[in-house]
């Protein structure tokens, strides 16, 4: 498994690590069983994500995707943030090894969970946003035995 330079940069120098006191929204996804937990804090003013922070328990890719996802949404409107998919995160990182693609999915989900939390707290509806899934049962099967 080899990480791109971008991934290594965001892993070694993660942007936006930390917490936000009294966040507008917070989302936690993943579970320790799978080895990744991401927590994203949002500070939203009006329609705009003013600040974003994260904490992550997980592998290099988990940290890097969290970092990149927070970078991508910072300063964006909610509508713009809704367009940040796992693919966008991966591309911004110059790709991920196949076994690590799920980390980018997790980053997308963490972001959306935080937005959902914000929407719930404020009784608003965000177009295209679904409630976070309860448990993540990732299927990491790379065997091709039955390809």
């Amino acid at each position, binding site marked *: *498994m080899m990480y791109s330079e971008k991934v290594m940069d965001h892993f070694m120098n993660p942007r936006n*690590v930390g917490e936000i006191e009294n966040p507008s929204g917070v989302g936690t996804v993943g579970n*320790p*069983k799978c*080895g990744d937990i991401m927590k994203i804090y949002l500070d939203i003013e009006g329609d705009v994500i003013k600040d974003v922070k994260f904490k992550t328990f997980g592998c290099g890719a988990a940290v890097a995707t969290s970092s990149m996802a927070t970078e991508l949404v910072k300063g964006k409107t909610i509508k713009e943030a809704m367009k940040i998919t796992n693919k966008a995160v991966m591309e911004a990182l110059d790709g991920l090894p196949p*076994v690590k693609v799920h980390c980018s999915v997790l980053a997308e989900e963490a972001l959306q969970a935080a937005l959902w939390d914000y929407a719930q707290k404020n009784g608003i509806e965000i177009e295209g946003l679904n409630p976070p899934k309860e448990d993540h049962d990732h299927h990491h099967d790379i065997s091709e035995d039955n390809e």
Partner: protein
Amino acid sequence: MQKIYFDHAATTAMHPKVVEAMVPYFTENFGNPSSIYEIARKNKQALDEARDKIAKLLGADPREIYFTSGGTESDNWAIKGIANAYKEKGNHIITSAIEHHAVLHTCEYLESKGYEVTYLPVNEHGQVDPQDVLKAIKDNTILISIMYANNEIGTIQPIEEIGRIAREKGIVFHTDAVQAVGHIPIDVKKANVDLLSLSGHKFHGPKGVGVLYIRKGIKIKPLLHGGAQERGRRGGTENVPGIVGLAKALEIAVENMEENTQKMTELRDYIIEGIKSRIDHVKLNGHPTDRLPNNINFTFDFIEGESLLLLLDMKGIYASSGSACTSGSLDPSHVLLAIGLPHERAHGSLRITLGDENTKEEADYLLEVLPPIVQRLRDMSPLYEIYKKEQNLN
């Protein structure tokens, strides 16, 4: 930046003398040992000498030494070969929950073919209780396969005792000694084993070559059908350079074992104590004393292993989190789960496995860089955040 290799359980560099021993067989003495002319006879002789040497070092007879392509083939052959040969007698196999995947996945495969497998649990230190083996034996039991020493946590099993039970009950006993051979003294007779797997690259020998010891009188079916090599039991043109290299490596390892064991045990315990005294929320995995002289395995709460490895890599330190073989998978180590660690703690393990070239200076460097790395990852961890909040509430 200095580079420190602390992952000797994954693989080792070839000893220069091993390379030296192999070189003549690359371009000069390259004949096929099965042929009859001069150059081939030289290869046959080299093969015989390697076999004799290895047999002597293991307390075996040369005719009990069979060359394979490594630990994985040896394990597959031992288990499938016995299952196949003794299928008239029964279809039950006993193994442990902490075996290497070469054993576990082979057993799972046999389950899909109608065999029944008992996976014995281990205690918190990773040891199988010989009484559990005894209790698991049934009328249809045909094979017991328990590893000599574990590749992740270094725990050494009570092999002699398990072997005695197997012998008394007349059941074939295999041990995966891939991590043990070359590191601790092994005598197949004293250990009461019928089959034993080893792999060259784990003790400064070449990759892609291993041995299966098969005690005289044990029936076994081939795994690799083909030519009449290895007394008709394993086909394939013999990897003469590799075999010569393996024999040389084992010889060197056994010659220096006493000295190396003492040196490595001291270094091991120095690092263990150093980590315990410098970092909180850590746990040493494996047995406190019945462990390989070169194995250190810690769990660091609240953090994940790969991140830890990457940051250590940045500092020039090469280590491992669980078995290197399992890094393709994302599941936490089955060994750490089997000794009772919860999933999140199993993810946060660090394995350091020493070689004889490692020094106290390297250990000191590790003990210097490790604490801030662990702290950095904890500061980033939502699990640590939760823990601290809970502490504040209390």
